[in-house]
């Protein structure tokens, strides 16, 4: 049954009856306590990614590897990151595979991707809270592509460690939407610092956001944050 499902994947496309893949869905559950069978299933799925099957078939495989993928699938998935039609679904799996190799593969792709595909990888590293990516993502705050710079700011706000806070504090983007993301990231970092008890570092982040050139909601956020730093209630 499982072999017939893999055979069906070769011609699977939008409009195909999904029932033909049901054995794979079932194997994802039934192999949970059988490491050998699980790894065999993973290898079979990863192998499909290197074949000439439809976008829909690869989409399906990435969804399954999101659930059962390990370091063993990372290379097959990473090869899809530069492909416009498959990059998102490769991240769909890589972003949720806990193996550090998955994050490393996305980090390595940062140097080769551009535009929206780069934005996607930055966002997945941020959502993953990948502290090892902070240095590389921080450099992108000055990217000529405002989409990339904005994504970098939001990702650093997701990671929100000391290095991310430092990079965001130093950023001076001219693009207003990048600045909005930088400010959001700074506020996220300040909240993290405040909750961890580092009030002076949080205060240092909040203070410059009180300026009259900041939008009302930012000044409000900074004021509330500073009050919290001093232990005062609103």
């Amino acid at each position, binding site marked *: 049954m499982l072999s017939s499902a893999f055979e069906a994947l070769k011609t699977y496309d*939008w*409009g*195909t009856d*999904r029932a033909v893949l049901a054995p794979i869905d079932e194997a994802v*559950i039934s192999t*949970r306590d059988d490491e050998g069978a699980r790894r065999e299933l993973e290898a079979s799925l990863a192998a499909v990614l290197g074949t000439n099957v439809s*976008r*829909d078939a690869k*989409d*399906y495989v990435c*969804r399954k590897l*999101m*659930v059962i993928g390990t370091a063993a699938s990372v290379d097959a998935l990473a090869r899809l990151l530069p492909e416009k*039609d498959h*990059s*998102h*679904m490769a*991240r*769909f799996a*890589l*972003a*949720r*595979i*806990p193996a550090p190799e998955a994050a490393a593969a996305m980090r390595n792709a940062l140097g080769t991707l551009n535009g*929206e*595909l780069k*934005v*996607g990888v*930055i*966002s*997945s590293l*941020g*959502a993953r809270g990948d502290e090892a990516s902070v240095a590389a993502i921080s450099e992108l705050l000055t990217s000529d592509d405002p*989409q990339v710079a904005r*994504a970098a700011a*939001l*990702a650093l706000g*997701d990671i929100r460690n000391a290095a991310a806070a430092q990079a965001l504090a130093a950023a001076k983007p001219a693009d207003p939407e990048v600045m*909005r993301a930088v400010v*959001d990231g700074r*506020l*996220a970092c300040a*909240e993290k610092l405040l909750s961890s008890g580092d009030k002076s570092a949080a205060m240092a982040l909040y203070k410059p956001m009180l300026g009259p050139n900041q*939008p*009302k*909601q*930012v000044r*409000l*956020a900074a004021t*509330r944050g500073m009050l919290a730093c001093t232990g005062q209630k609103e």
Partner: protein
Amino acid sequence: MSCRQPTRRKFLQTAAAVASVPYVITSKALGQGDVPPASDRIVMGGIGIGNMGASDQGAFLGRPDVQYVAVSDVRESVRKTAKERADQHYKNGDCQTYNDFRELLARDDIDAVHVATPDHWHAIMVIEACRHGKDVYCQKPETLTLREGPLMIDAARRYARVVSGGSQRVLEDYKELVGRCWGGELGEIKSINVNVGPLSQLCNLPAETTPPDIDWEMWLGPAAWAPYNAARCSGNFATDGGSWRSYVDYSGGGMTDWGAHHFGGATFAVDVRELQPVEIEFHNDPEGKHLTFKYANGILLHHNRPKTENLVVEGTPGEKRPAKPVPTYKGEGGIYGDFIHCVKTREKPFRDIELAVNTVAVSHLGTIAYQLQRSLKWDPAAQHFPGDEEANRFLDRARREPWQL
């Protein structure tokens, strides 16, 4: 918004503003009778004005304390109809239309927005609206993944925004049950049962010709790319394949769509709406698969318990408890009035985003237990499944570029 900042719209502040002042200031602009002057109304826009969005638009348009000025939708015909609805109401042509919601959010004159897109857009739009200083009324189910909820709450709290969830049924449909539970008639509450479903499914519908009316890339947004199909993006309320509510990339199915109402009403009735479960027990009985959510305070929330009707509460027969005051809407006009009242007063609305997120979290946790076909432990403070690498993979899903929370 004028109630917070009465002088915000100082029309004579700049030369540009002077040029925009109409030659004839109408009685509507100045206000008359029960209608406040324009400068004292909440200026609103709507994003996603199809089925529920049209209903929400109608509710806000009907309020004299709202000035509805803009709509955003990825369907041209929907934008046109929504604009006509607003323009006819105000007898002018002022309502602006946008294909891209970001242009609407960029308008400084808009105080608040309502969001009624498919669920895969909710978190991005709510968070972005907060970053732009807007208050938000977001249709239910407010989230598509567990990770989105805390980020939406963070954005609301960070920028001190009023963000209301959108289930009017939580208060209005379950009033009698809530009254009995909070009134102490049932004694100590032990459990409640909710029957709701189904889960959403992967969509594999065939490609159809994309109509020129729709911006398909924007409809998909952060969801996985897929070809246009009318049923894939239909806004009707079907959860059996006939609408986006049936499909996993855009919705949690009936489990979240009606779950937002039923779980919302149930957790309100047994007073656990400020909590999230700590354990989800999966039962694979001959009578069917079902769940028991356990809360830290001992309350049990059953899902699809065999031979048990929806919203049956197990109390302590013969025992009475002191009545507690039941929370309700503020202001006038149901859930919409509650939201507008809170926009003016900066209070938390009845369906504050945190309560809404807690409700939909029940649906998501249940969905993951059914998908994995096993029991789960959940840490509400840490927002993860402790030591459960397999379940933690389901906390979120990567969004299609360039969309990001």
